[in-house]
């Protein structure tokens, strides 16, 4: 998928679900789609509030405290922001900063994710302890092929339309922490994802996430190495 190219003319689609419950009957769920033309300049301004943790380059924290945002699918970002905003996804650190009164309205939301999509990814994200050619890496690869490929893709590229996160380039410690939270029931996810994670042992989860951390990121998405 050529992710960058369709950026300029992208319309961000928001699915907003209203569950209207009246005294008399359960109304059906209504989906409203709103379309916005992103404004990158405003997106950059909005991003300031994100930058204090995810950093100006959107690379997050290598120790996994804050995930890399650069390179992530826009729909995935929007979904996470809205779920944290509503409290559906429990994240007390981020909650204050993604409210309408702080991050802004849907236009601002569209703008900021479009801006994030312009950021190149870190060339040196945090990886797991077992590199290629180790026994553990191979085990993780097997688990990945069996359980994860159908949604997250062969190379962990994810799927914007389906809201499946891109895994390539994400910090190992971050993915591991999130997966453990899912395992403990502390982070709500899609039932298919929950089923997979619940069925994996603690060790297998570590192995598969180790493998994920070594999935190569296409060169065109990476920032050049920085001189130290």
């Amino acid at each position, binding site marked *: 998928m050529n992710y960058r190219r369709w950026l300029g003319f992208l319309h961000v689609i928001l699915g907003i679900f209203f569950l209207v419950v009246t005294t008399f009957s359960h109304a059906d769920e209504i989906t409203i789609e709103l379309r916005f033309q992103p404004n990158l300049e405003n997106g950059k301004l909005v991003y300031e*509030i994100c930058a*204090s*943790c995810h950093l100006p380059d959107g690379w997050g*924290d290598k*120790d996994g*405290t804050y995930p890399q945002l650069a390179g992530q699918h826009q729909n995935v970002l929007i979904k996470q922001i809205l779920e944290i905003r509503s*409290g559906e996804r*429990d994240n*007390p*650190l981020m*909650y*204050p*900063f993604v*409210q309408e*009164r*702080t991050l802004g309205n849907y236009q601002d939301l569209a703008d900021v994710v479009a801006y994030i999509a312009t950021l190149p990814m870190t060339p040196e994200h945090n990886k797991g302890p077992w590199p290629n050619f180790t026994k553990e890496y191979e085990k993780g690869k097997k688990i990945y092929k069996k359980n994860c490929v159908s949604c997250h893709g062969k190379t962990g590229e994810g799927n914007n339309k389906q809201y499946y996160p891109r895994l390539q380039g994400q910090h190992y410690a971050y993915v591991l922490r999130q997966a453990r939270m899912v395992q*403990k029931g502390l982070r709500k996810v899609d039932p298919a994802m929950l089923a997979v994670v619940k069925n994996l042992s603690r060790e297998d989860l570590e192995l598969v996430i180790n493998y994920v951390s070594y999935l190569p990121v296409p060169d065109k998405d990476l920032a050049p190495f920085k001189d130290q």
Partner: protein
Amino acid sequence: MTYKISRRAFLQASGTAILAAGTSAGVLAEEQKRTAPVIAGNTLVPAPLPKAKGPRVVVVGGGWSGLTVAKYLKKFDKDLDVVLIDRNALFVSCPMSNLWLADQINMDFLTHSFLDAARNNGYIFFNATVVDLDRESRKLYTEQGYIDYEYLVLAPGIDYDYQRIGVEDIEAEYYIRNNYPGGFVNASEYLTLKNKLENFRGGTFLLTVPAGNYRCTAAPYERACMAAAIFKRNGVKGKVLLLDHNAEIKIKKDGFQNAFEQLYPDIIQYEPSVDIQSINLDSREVESEFDSYTFDDASIYAPVRASRLIEHMGLVDPQSLQKEAHIDPFMNHLVGDEHVYVTGDARSQPFSKSGHTANSEGKFIAEVIAAHRKGERLEWRSPQTMCFSGVKIDPLEAMNIITYYKYDKERKTFGFDRVHLVDVWSVKSGQAGLAWAEGMFKDMFYT
């Protein structure tokens, strides 16, 4: 479920009342003479609580820590029977109270019901005062009877330690507590402070920053800004004198420095390195080693110590200047007793004594206890601290900081780790602070 009272029992009860009302004073005195010496009488019966439906975990103190622990114990292990005890019948938040002083939020924002918290999160709230602990038999005594526990979590918070600012006798201590309350422990103090600031007619209003790890590191500096903003708004020619025990502003230093100089240059007088030696209440004078300062009104924030309950139960860490509990620095259980935990501001680790810290620590300790019951052990996880400080009002503008902690093996203590500081104030940060508190209240009381 309904409770019935039989007609006979009712008649008996009302009969006793009539009889009591009709007895002579002499009989009453006789009655009292018989019962008065049994001081512990009430505590030696089981507390009036529903029977435990599973292993009982008792949480003492319904502050930010206790509320979080109680909620998350049920989340991590729904079989646990959780009882939260607080001597207060109503929750009034200390975090955000500075903003309420300056009318940026109202009292409803700070006030929440323990009953809501218990109902929404599936635990029992018991409005009682804890008086003692017997760890041998795992019994906690309240003034309304004892409770058998499987696990006990003590989150009793702090008290002031006036001796550390040279206030030795109880008369003087009482006078200061009553007339110049610190405003960091209970709701009456906040109300008194608000009335004082609102009615101040000019002169010097003294605020102090204590030594040690006091509650809410940024709050005394934020409060100076709020007090100055109130005087400015009310058109009062008042000065805020902020005497700081520390050599410099302890947190968000540049931000507060800028706020003092740029926003309140003629109002806030900041004096660092003032080690208060004594307070003369007649002449309203504070003596430090080298100087003396006079004031017209004050809120004196004395150094803090762990709640006296910790000392009364014999759980104080002898190394702790602030009389905090002797606990494992990673898992928070008493050294040698994995059935009793101490969390929140009574802990002995040097974490920031703040609401967010207590909330994030509380989740972890709930998980630790749930794991312990299953015979599992968790790896230590650092608490988070997130703290907003208002410096400007109408509209509210604030700064913020997020930090974690890291254990230093050589120094055998914790230090800040992964600090993200925004020390430039903005309306957005002000709004984020309000949203933060709403999110926290939602977490502890409503969802």
